[in-house]
Protein backbone atom coordinates (compact mmCIF):
# COMPACT_ATOMS: atom_id res chain seq x y z
CA UNK A 1 0.00 0.00 0.00
CA UNK A 2 1.43 3.39 -0.85
CA UNK A 3 1.32 5.82 2.03
CA UNK A 4 1.08 9.58 1.60
CA UNK A 5 3.29 11.20 4.22
CA UNK A 6 2.76 14.84 5.21
CA UNK A 7 5.11 16.57 7.65
CA UNK A 8 4.93 20.17 8.74
CA UNK A 9 6.98 22.13 11.28
CA UNK A 10 5.34 25.49 11.88
CA UNK A 11 4.79 28.22 14.48
CA UNK A 12 1.06 28.54 13.83
CA UNK A 13 -1.69 26.27 15.11
CA UNK A 14 -3.45 23.63 12.99
CA UNK A 15 -6.96 22.40 12.32
CA UNK A 16 -7.47 18.76 13.30
CA UNK A 17 -10.70 18.51 11.28
CA UNK A 18 -9.00 19.79 8.15
CA UNK A 19 -6.05 17.42 8.55
CA UNK A 20 -8.41 14.48 9.13
CA UNK A 21 -10.31 15.34 5.95
CA UNK A 22 -7.09 15.41 3.96
CA UNK A 23 -6.51 11.76 4.92
CA UNK A 24 -10.02 10.51 4.17
CA UNK A 25 -11.68 12.75 1.58
CA UNK A 26 -12.34 11.11 -1.78
CA UNK A 27 -11.15 7.70 -0.57
CA UNK A 28 -13.17 4.56 0.01
CA UNK A 29 -10.30 2.35 1.19
CA UNK A 30 -9.79 4.03 4.59
CA UNK A 31 -11.38 2.02 7.37
CA UNK A 32 -9.65 3.67 10.31
CA UNK A 33 -8.29 7.08 11.15
CA UNK A 34 -6.44 7.58 14.44
CA UNK A 35 -5.48 11.11 15.44
CA UNK A 36 -3.50 12.18 18.47
CA UNK A 37 -3.17 15.80 19.55
CA UNK A 38 -0.70 16.87 22.22
CA UNK A 39 -1.60 20.06 24.12
CA UNK A 40 0.31 22.46 26.34
CA UNK A 41 -1.00 21.96 29.89
CA UNK A 42 -0.79 24.53 32.68
CA UNK A 43 0.79 22.20 35.28
CA UNK A 44 -1.74 23.05 37.97
CA UNK A 45 -1.79 26.73 37.10
CA UNK A 46 2.00 27.22 37.45
CA UNK A 47 2.94 27.23 33.77
CA UNK A 48 2.48 30.48 31.80
CA UNK A 49 3.81 29.19 28.46
CA UNK A 50 6.18 26.80 26.75
CA UNK A 51 8.74 27.87 24.19
CA UNK A 52 9.66 25.15 21.75
CA UNK A 53 13.04 25.32 20.07
CA UNK A 54 13.78 23.10 17.09
CA UNK A 55 16.61 22.28 14.70
CA UNK A 56 15.40 23.50 11.30
CA UNK A 57 16.22 21.02 8.58
CA UNK A 58 16.94 18.13 10.92
CA UNK A 59 13.47 18.27 12.51
CA UNK A 60 11.77 17.68 9.14
CA UNK A 61 14.36 15.06 8.13
CA UNK A 62 14.09 13.13 11.39
CA UNK A 63 10.28 13.08 11.50
CA UNK A 64 10.41 12.03 7.83
CA UNK A 65 12.63 9.07 8.72
CA UNK A 66 10.30 8.10 11.60
CA UNK A 67 7.25 8.33 9.30
CA UNK A 68 8.93 6.22 6.58
CA UNK A 69 9.68 3.59 9.22
CA UNK A 70 6.02 3.58 10.32
CA UNK A 71 4.84 3.29 6.70
CA UNK A 72 7.17 0.32 6.22
CA UNK A 73 5.88 -1.45 9.33
CA UNK A 74 2.12 -1.00 8.95
CA UNK A 75 -0.24 -0.96 5.94
CA UNK A 76 -1.12 2.75 5.94
CA UNK A 77 -2.73 4.93 3.31
CA UNK A 78 -1.71 8.21 4.92
CA UNK A 79 0.35 9.60 7.75
CA UNK A 80 0.43 13.21 8.94
CA UNK A 81 2.71 14.76 11.55
CA UNK A 82 2.57 18.44 12.49
CA UNK A 83 4.80 19.91 15.18
CA UNK A 84 4.74 23.52 16.29
CA UNK A 85 7.65 25.65 17.47
CA UNK A 86 7.83 29.02 19.21
CA UNK A 87 5.82 30.22 22.22
CA UNK A 88 2.76 28.13 23.04
CA UNK A 89 0.17 28.90 25.72
CA UNK A 90 -1.62 26.38 27.97
CA UNK A 91 -4.63 24.95 26.15
CA UNK A 92 -3.04 25.30 22.72
CA UNK A 93 -2.11 22.26 20.63
CA UNK A 94 1.59 21.44 20.13
CA UNK A 95 1.64 18.31 18.02
CA UNK A 96 -0.65 16.31 15.78
CA UNK A 97 -0.17 12.77 14.53
CA UNK A 98 -2.76 11.17 12.27
CA UNK A 99 -2.64 7.70 10.73
CA UNK A 100 -5.09 6.30 8.17
CA UNK A 101 -5.37 2.64 7.28
CA UNK A 102 -7.85 0.01 6.17
CA UNK A 103 -7.66 -1.47 9.67
CA UNK A 104 -7.83 0.06 13.13
CA UNK A 105 -4.95 -1.86 14.71
CA UNK A 106 -2.47 -0.57 12.12
CA UNK A 107 -3.73 3.01 12.54
CA UNK A 108 -3.55 2.88 16.36
CA UNK A 109 -0.11 1.29 16.41
CA UNK A 110 1.38 3.55 13.75
CA UNK A 111 0.14 6.70 15.51
CA UNK A 112 1.49 5.47 18.85
CA UNK A 113 4.85 4.48 17.31
CA UNK A 114 5.16 7.84 15.59
CA UNK A 115 4.50 9.75 18.83
CA UNK A 116 6.87 7.62 20.90
CA UNK A 117 9.71 8.08 18.40
CA UNK A 118 8.90 11.72 17.77
CA UNK A 119 9.28 12.47 21.49
CA UNK A 120 12.66 10.78 21.77
CA UNK A 121 14.25 11.35 18.31
CA UNK A 122 12.90 14.56 16.80
CA UNK A 123 15.09 17.59 17.64
CA UNK A 124 12.70 19.74 19.71
CA UNK A 125 13.27 21.17 23.17
CA UNK A 126 10.74 22.74 25.54
CA UNK A 127 11.52 25.61 27.87
CA UNK A 128 9.04 26.45 30.61
CA UNK A 129 7.88 29.94 31.46
CA UNK A 130 6.41 30.08 34.97
CA UNK A 131 3.50 32.19 36.19
CA UNK A 132 4.71 35.33 38.02
CA UNK A 133 7.88 35.69 35.95
CA UNK A 134 9.71 32.97 37.78
CA UNK A 135 12.52 31.80 35.56
CA UNK A 136 11.62 28.56 33.90
CA UNK A 137 13.82 25.61 33.15
CA UNK A 138 14.30 23.38 30.17
CA UNK A 139 12.01 20.37 30.38
CA UNK A 140 13.97 17.24 31.33
CA UNK A 141 13.81 14.03 29.38
CA UNK A 142 11.63 11.39 31.00
CA UNK A 143 12.90 7.83 31.29
CA UNK A 144 9.32 6.71 30.62
CA UNK A 145 9.52 8.30 27.14
CA UNK A 146 12.64 6.28 26.32
CA UNK A 147 10.95 3.14 27.64
CA UNK A 148 7.88 3.85 25.49
CA UNK A 149 10.05 4.17 22.37
CA UNK A 150 12.08 1.11 23.35
CA UNK A 151 9.06 -1.19 23.28
CA UNK A 152 8.87 -0.84 19.47
CA UNK A 153 12.38 -2.14 18.95
CA UNK A 154 12.53 -5.36 17.02
CA UNK A 155 14.34 -8.20 18.84
Amino acid at each position, binding site marked *: MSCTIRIRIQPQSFDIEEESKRLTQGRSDVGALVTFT*GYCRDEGGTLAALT*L*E*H*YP*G*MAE*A*EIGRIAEEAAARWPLSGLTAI*HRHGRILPGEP*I*VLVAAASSHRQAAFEAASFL*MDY*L*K*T*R*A*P*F*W*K*KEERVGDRDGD*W*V*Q*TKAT*DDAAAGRWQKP
Partner: protein
Amino acid sequence: MSLELRYFAWVRERIGSPGESLDVPGDVTTVSELISWLANKDEGYAAAFAEPDIIRAAIDHEHVEHDAALAGAKEVAFFPPMTGG
Protein backbone atom coordinates in the same frame (compact mmCIF):
# COMPACT_ATOMS: atom_id res chain seq x y z
CA MET B 1 39.19 20.73 9.03
CA SER B 2 36.50 23.40 8.77
CA LEU B 3 33.18 22.57 10.45
CA GLU B 4 29.84 24.31 10.89
CA LEU B 5 28.80 23.84 14.50
CA ARG B 6 25.24 24.23 15.78
CA TYR B 7 24.10 24.38 19.41
CA PHE B 8 20.57 24.02 20.79
CA ALA B 9 18.60 24.54 24.01
CA TRP B 10 20.77 24.80 27.15
CA VAL B 11 23.91 23.87 25.22
CA ARG B 12 23.31 27.02 23.13
CA GLU B 13 22.59 29.11 26.24
CA ARG B 14 25.73 27.98 28.09
CA ILE B 15 27.99 28.54 25.07
CA GLY B 16 26.22 31.83 24.39
CA SER B 17 25.88 31.28 20.64
CA PRO B 18 23.62 29.32 18.26
CA GLY B 19 26.62 28.18 16.24
CA GLU B 20 29.86 29.02 14.50
CA SER B 21 32.33 28.02 11.81
CA LEU B 22 35.50 26.59 13.31
CA ASP B 23 38.77 25.19 12.09
CA VAL B 24 39.29 22.02 14.03
CA PRO B 25 42.80 20.57 14.50
CA GLY B 26 43.67 17.43 12.51
CA ASP B 27 43.98 15.25 15.61
CA VAL B 28 40.30 15.83 16.44
CA THR B 29 38.75 12.97 14.45
CA THR B 30 35.62 11.88 16.36
CA VAL B 31 32.57 13.53 17.95
CA SER B 32 33.95 12.63 21.36
CA GLU B 33 37.32 14.28 20.61
CA LEU B 34 35.50 17.36 19.31
CA ILE B 35 33.54 17.62 22.58
CA SER B 36 36.77 17.42 24.63
CA TRP B 37 38.44 20.02 22.40
CA LEU B 38 35.46 22.41 22.64
CA ALA B 39 35.18 21.94 26.42
CA ASN B 40 38.67 23.42 26.76
CA LYS B 41 37.86 26.63 24.87
CA ASP B 42 36.37 28.63 27.77
CA GLU B 43 34.05 28.46 30.77
CA GLY B 44 30.85 28.52 28.72
CA TYR B 45 31.90 25.56 26.58
CA ALA B 46 33.16 23.79 29.69
CA ALA B 47 29.72 24.26 31.32
CA ALA B 48 27.90 23.09 28.17
CA PHE B 49 29.99 19.92 27.95
CA ALA B 50 30.46 19.31 31.69
CA GLU B 51 28.57 16.01 31.40
CA PRO B 52 29.49 14.78 27.93
CA ASP B 53 27.52 11.55 28.35
CA ILE B 54 24.18 13.37 28.28
CA ILE B 55 25.02 15.45 25.19
CA ARG B 56 23.45 14.25 21.93
CA ALA B 57 25.15 14.83 18.59
CA ALA B 58 24.10 14.95 14.96
CA ILE B 59 26.25 15.02 11.82
CA ASP B 60 24.59 16.58 8.79
CA HIS B 61 21.09 16.25 10.33
CA GLU B 62 21.44 12.60 11.46
CA HIS B 63 21.83 11.35 15.03
CA VAL B 64 25.27 9.85 15.70
CA GLU B 65 27.04 8.21 18.63
CA HIS B 66 30.05 9.89 20.22
CA ASP B 67 32.48 7.48 18.56
CA ALA B 68 31.33 8.62 15.08
CA ALA B 69 34.09 9.86 12.77
CA LEU B 70 34.05 13.51 11.71
CA ALA B 71 35.60 12.76 8.30
CA GLY B 72 33.36 14.22 5.59
CA ALA B 73 31.12 16.07 8.06
CA LYS B 74 29.91 19.55 7.15
CA GLU B 75 27.61 20.40 10.05
CA VAL B 76 27.91 19.00 13.56
CA ALA B 77 25.21 19.82 16.11
CA PHE B 78 25.18 19.39 19.88
CA PHE B 79 22.06 19.39 22.05
CA PRO B 80 20.47 17.95 25.19
CA PRO B 81 18.13 14.95 24.98
CA MET B 82 15.01 15.89 23.00
CA THR B 83 11.80 16.87 24.80
CA GLY B 84 9.35 17.59 21.99
CA GLY B 85 5.98 16.05 21.33
